């Protein structure tokens, strides 16, 4: 219980800091919305077949790019006044620090998805909400997975000078399975007729991916953040 309580404290602290500065969320949402607008110019004819092929990729590319902005900045913030040291110095389990940061990150990534998904549905006339439950589930799993993997590497690169360049270079290859699962699920949900069997296969796959990286991250976090 103490672990959950402390992780919740750290997550709430991150969200409170963000609610006050609105720095990350504004940038992410603006960037996500801008991507959707650009897509709508690239595919202006609302060709149904093209839309069903391309919208899944657009959705997950938007989440990936906007999420990376959030990851880098959220950990940069801990560097500014060396507050990560204050968190690690407190008698809080290191796991709670990791989980707290990851939860806050997942909330921010989900906030982007909440903006980008309806915008894509609106601008590209995509029936994304026909199977809203499955889509919401895969987006939540995607956001959680990205937050877990991203938090580990953003924390590791905290003291590296070229971390802004290195983070996506290291992160994206590891996130490829996550994006494949996300786009495959979304594609299956947009198919006519809908392919729920394939969608659920990839949802389960992403669930296992998240669980595997959660266990791995919990195992290595402490050794990565101590000098």
């Amino acid at each position: 219980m103490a672990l959950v309580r402390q992780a919740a404290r750290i997550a709430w602290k991150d969200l409170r800091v963000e609610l006050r500065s609105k720095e990350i969320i504004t940038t992410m949402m603006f960037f996500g919305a801008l991507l959707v607008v650009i897509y709508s110019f690239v595919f202006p004819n609302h060709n149904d077949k093209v839309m069903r092929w391309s919208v899944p990729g657009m959705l997950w590319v938007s989440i990936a790019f906007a999420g990376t902005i959030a990851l880098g900045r959220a950990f940069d913030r801990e560097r500014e006044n060396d507050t990560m040291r204050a968190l690690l110095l407190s008698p809080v389990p290191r796991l709670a620090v990791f989980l707290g940061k990851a939860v806050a990150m997942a909330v921010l990534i989900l906030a982007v998805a909440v903006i980008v998904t309806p915008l894509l549905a609106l601008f590209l006339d995509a029936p994304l909400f026909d199977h809203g439950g499955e889509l919401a589930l895969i987006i939540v799993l995607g956001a959680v997975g990205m937050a877990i993997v991203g938090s580990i590497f953003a924390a590791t690169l905290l003291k590296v000078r070229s971390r802004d360049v290195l983070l996506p270079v290291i992160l994206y290859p590891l996130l490829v399975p996550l994006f494949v699962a996300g786009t495959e699920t979304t594609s299956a949900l947009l198919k006519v007729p809908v392919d729920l069997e394939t969608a659920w296969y990839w949802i389960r796959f992403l669930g296992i991916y998240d669980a595997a990286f959660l266990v791995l991250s919990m195992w290595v976090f402490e050794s990565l953040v101590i000098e």
Partner: protein
Amino acid sequence: MTPALDLVEIKKVAKRYGSERALAGVTLELRGGSMTALLGHNGAGKTTLLGVLSTLVRPSSGAIAYRAAGKDLSGDAVRRQIGMLAHASLCYGELSAIENLELFAGLYEIQVDIPALLDKVGLDKRARTREARTYSRGMVQRLALARALLTRPSLLLLDEPFTGLDRDGALALGQQLGEIKGQGTIVVVVTHDLEAIAGRADHVAILRRGSLVFEERGDAYSYEALKDVYHRHAN
């Protein structure tokens, strides 16, 4: 409740960053109710040694024993006893002084009279509810000190605590540290402001290029005595 630390034994602690040697087999004993002035030029290894003492820097070799009433403490139990004032404030600029201290009190799961603590470090009442990023350097330093003292630590590590404080503020802090030492706390101060710790430091350790080159215990070193020891051994 974890018992207070009364002895910290640093045993042959060495730290390397790649081919760079930051500490070379430092052995030192820190006792409860004493103030150690950890002196040396820039790059001598003082901050690294504080990092190792704070448990956030892993030594390449050697070990540190944290003892409380004859028992060895480790992990969370040790961190609960450590208060640290570093170069940076270790506080969130987007939160006010009160919100910062509430956050850390929550993480330590302790009840603290925050207004009284802020009175003690002399942080202006009107500033307490303002975001910390609007503070002057001196106010940030006072907040950082309040954060370090929040848990009534039995091992207080201070890295250049007088930075950003005016002369009166520095001397007042020096006096406050003397009182904290009097309560049985192990105080370790890294500073170049010898005047502020004069008459209070009773243990001097000087590092040069990662090695301990001088160590001595006395009653309370005067400014002249500290200056003399520093100039003879730090160069």
